[in-house]
């Protein structure tokens, strides 16, 4: 009974973590950028979807689309205003670009967070779920929204897989993550691939953000924890490895759910952190990472 409940609840949250972390790891794999404004972009999407419904009085579907659109715009803004200038800068030595991108995106994330807090206050906002009501699974009352969240996450990740493995653009992205120089030699413009990747990332983060807004609700305080959880999932799975991130997302999601049910919700994040430290010591490159 309890096991089934953990299985169902954990699945939805894990799928959501997986979706959030996939875009994050994709960006790192292709352009070596760790985007620390990740949480801010997800929250921006959720708050935009909430505002569309409650301030502009749009219907739920338009609101959700609006949220994803905002995430896409913010994602491009992150690339063009912060990441690209640092990558192209001649005054920053190459070996220090990584820390500059980290600092830059971190500051950018704080700016987005503060703007959201300024215009929409710090209060938690819950986006109206697209599907309502509960359904009975073998005696467990489960909100339909949980199932919907899990389904959408799996569907989007499946579509991403098709895009990366079956289309020309996707293959270019995959190639760029393996060997950027080789891709340039084949006559593909690396900048265009980056733009495509940031676009995919924006959509993924947007969908994850809107779903999170429906599932748990968000506030501007969720920015930091969201970035941290995506970061730890991605490192646990191995930086740049999408399948590693998927596995890690389910490990972390279930570990958190089990702890919350069996021990106490207050200790929710601790076992996952311990696991992370443990993996760092015995296998620093993560579960499926390449060095």
């Amino acid at each position: 009974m309890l096991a089934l409940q953990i299985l169902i609840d954990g699945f939805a949250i894990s799928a959501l973590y997986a979706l959030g972390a996939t875009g994050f790891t994709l960006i790192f794999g292709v352009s070596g950028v760790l985007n620390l404004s990740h949480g801010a972009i997800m929250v921006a999407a959720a708050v935009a979807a909430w505002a569309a419904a409650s301030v502009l009085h749009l219907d739920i579907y338009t609101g959700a689309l609006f949220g994803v659109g905002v995430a896409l715009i913010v994602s491009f803004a992150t690339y063009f205003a912060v990441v690209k200038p640092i990558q192209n800068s001649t005054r920053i030595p190459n070996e220090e670009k990584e820390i500059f991108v980290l600092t830059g995106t971190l500051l950018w994330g704080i700016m987005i967070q503060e703007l959201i807090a300024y215009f929409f206050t710090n209060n938690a906002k819950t986006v109206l779920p697209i599907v309502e009501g509960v359904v009975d699974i073998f005696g467990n009352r489960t909100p339909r929204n949980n199932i919907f969240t899990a389904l959408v996450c799996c569907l989007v990740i499946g579509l991403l897989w098709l895009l990366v493995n079956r289309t020309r653009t996707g293959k270019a992205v995959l190639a760029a993550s393996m060997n950027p120089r080789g891709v340039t030699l084949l006559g593909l413009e690396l900048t265009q691939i980056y733009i495509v990747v940031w676009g995919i990332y924006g959509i993924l983060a947007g969908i994850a953000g809107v779903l999170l807004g429906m599932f748990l609700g968000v506030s501007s305080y969720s920015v930091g924890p969201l970035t941290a959880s995506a970061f730890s999932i991605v490192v646990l799975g191995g930086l740049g490895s999408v399948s590693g991130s998927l596995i890690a997302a389910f490990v972390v999601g279930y570990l958190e759910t089990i702890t919350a049910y069996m021990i106490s919700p207050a200790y929710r994040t601790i076992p996952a952190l311990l696991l992370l430290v443990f993996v760092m010591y015995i296998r620093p490159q993560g579960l499926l990472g390449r060095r």
Partner: protein
Amino acid sequence: MANFFTSRLFFISLACVAVAATLPLYVSGYILGLLTVAFYFGVFAMAWDLLFGFAGEVNFGPTFLIGTGAYTAGILNNQFGWSVYLCILLGALASVVAGFVLALPALRVRGPYFGLTTLVAVLMLQNFVVVFADLTGGEIGLTIPDVITINAGANYWIALGFMTISAAILYGLSQSPVGLVLQASGQDPVQAGALGFNIVKHKLAAFIVSAFFSGLSGALLVFYFGTASVGTVVDVAVGVNVIVSAVLGGRRTVLGAALGAIFLIVAGEFLRPTGELATFIVSAVALLVVLFFPGGFLGAALSREARS
């Protein structure tokens, strides 16, 4: 080293400290209190810069070291009522142990992986504080019975003196042969090792020195506040401020980091009338500096001096 005492930087710093020392004679207690916090923060930023700018370790968890020192000192004083100075010393020593713990993964993993390990260390400390609320005061904060002094001017002088001495030691260290070896091992560990330098030993030393000053400053800060809480010495946001200060002031300059910290805290206070937008403006300014003056305040000034 010898020509430092005749350089312009030395005289400018000396003049700044001399002017700063006279401030309690004519400014209000409010400004003194603000600067006192800023000076302790300056030490956090300088200690972080030693680790990042020289040893090349991306430490996302300066507050792991700061918080360990601060909470150890606070808990000892709260539980056993030991004298303030003993508590501060033990806090700094606990922080050194924490620095040692943090250094272990640093010798194994690099770059983003190490960054995450340090971030996790902070989150663990934060969880520890919340879980063992009986001992640490939990989310409300730990009340500390003793303070060093309640005189605003005296507190200010202690902070200023502490920052000046720390700055002298950390800057001296960074310009010494040890600092050069550290810089070399941060930029190219293989080559530095091939030249016969013991990288492990140097990096470990950098962690220990950085931890000592972070912990000492953290312990002094809680005895100034009279309270220790997650929001003031452990939270990731505090660590972010330390990092932003160091990058803003100019990484690899040590002194710039203190400048950046003072700027960050004073600017945050001046922008208070703008309400919730204050953090936004400070972050935006910091981002512009990162994008257009990657060397930071002091980096830009020093390179101009070097060119002329």
